[in-house]
């Protein structure tokens, strides 16, 4: 039950594209961190393939892609991946609704870290809408889950 290497690569690149998709401002404020969702799935489904280190490297790429402080997403992704790997046996058995709850807390934690670090380095006042991606990310998790599951299983053939 393992995915192909190209599966990992393509899904992550696709998620990166979704992260920087030029959406209208009203939708864009709620655009969740797709790369993190994909990362959570792969770490849960195939824990021996992607690890904390790969997540860290991926985070660096996302930092450059979105113009953040170098290492911000790297730190977040590494920590979340670690938690995912820790919980992966439990997470895999849960129904999707219960997984969503975990995903909600993962996303909330990641957004909080980003919030703190961003507040240190700039004086932007974050609106309440800063937390919207957490909610939307939780809501789209079942979609991400079934899509990636389909890719993983069909990739095996």
């Amino acid at each position: 039950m393992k995915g192909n290497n190209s599966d990992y690569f393509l899904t992550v690149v696709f998620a990166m594209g979704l992260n920087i998709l030029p959406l209208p401002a009203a939708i864009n404020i709620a655009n969740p961190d797709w790369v993190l969702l994909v990362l959570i799935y792969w770490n849960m489904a195939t824990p021996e393939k992607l690890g904390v280190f790969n997540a860290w490297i991926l985070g660096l790429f996302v930092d450059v892609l979105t113009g953040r402080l170098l290492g911000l997403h790297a730190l977040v992704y590494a920590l979340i991946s670690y938690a995912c790997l820790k919980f992966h046996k439990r997470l895999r058995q849960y129904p999707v609704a219960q997984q969503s709850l975990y995903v909600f807390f993962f996303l909330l934690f990641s957004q909080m870290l980003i919030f703190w670090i961003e507040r240190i380095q700039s004086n932007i006042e974050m609106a309440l809408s800063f937390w919207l991606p957490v909610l939307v990310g939780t809501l789209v998790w079942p979609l991400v889950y079934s899509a990636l599951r389909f890719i993983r299983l069909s990739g095996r053939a």
Partner: protein
Amino acid sequence: MNKTRSILSTIVYPVQLLVSWPIEFSEQAYDTVVSYSALKKENRRLKKKQLIDSIKLLKFEALENENIRLRALLENSFKLGEQVLVAEILSVNLVPYEHVVVVNKGSRFGIKEKQPVLDANGIVGQVLRPLLLSSEVMLITDPNHAIPVQVNRNGLRTIAIGSGQLDRLKLPFLPNNADIQPGDLLVTSGLGGTFPQGYPVAVVDHFTAQPNKPFASIFATPKAKLDRIRELLIVWSDSTPVPLVFPEIDEIDDSNEGE
């Protein structure tokens, strides 16, 4: 650290291109199928505009020369003209709470940090991070951005701060009795050293005195169409003052025409 970022950015640049490609493609497709009569109409309009502009420019050259002469009389230094490079905005969104855009020219073209960026109507922003193939440009409406400006009518100097909305600048440091009113044009004052002097930035559209507070609440609308721009001009302004003696005027004119 910047080098690391440059190298990493080269690797993810294809992702950015890939994301912005469909939008650019659809615009190009629109350009291809736009009707003959519309093209003709636009052509006529542009020709008219070009005529008017070139007439204005004729006067401008005379005025510039006069300005140089007058400054020489005052034994003042004169700033060299600017070189520009046209860059295109990639259709990607970075983060919603910042106003930073990605353009398709990077340090490969000699772009440096803090270079001013303009469009045809006014100041757009400044280069935040030059990467190898692309660079990030911070718009003047970013909440972290401040630009030294001056009221064109009376020379009153202040600082305009980004509001986080694409059509709004704040001027939070003017007292209630300041001589400023809606309709005033704000131009760069050149004080910070980043932006060259005298470029239009914004028009004041809202002035409310706040008697219970030390400063008035003033808002301005940027001249540049920040929500619509596709192409930007990245400017090299040579800020080293040139001591002026008359024979040098010709040389300066030559270098003005570069690019």
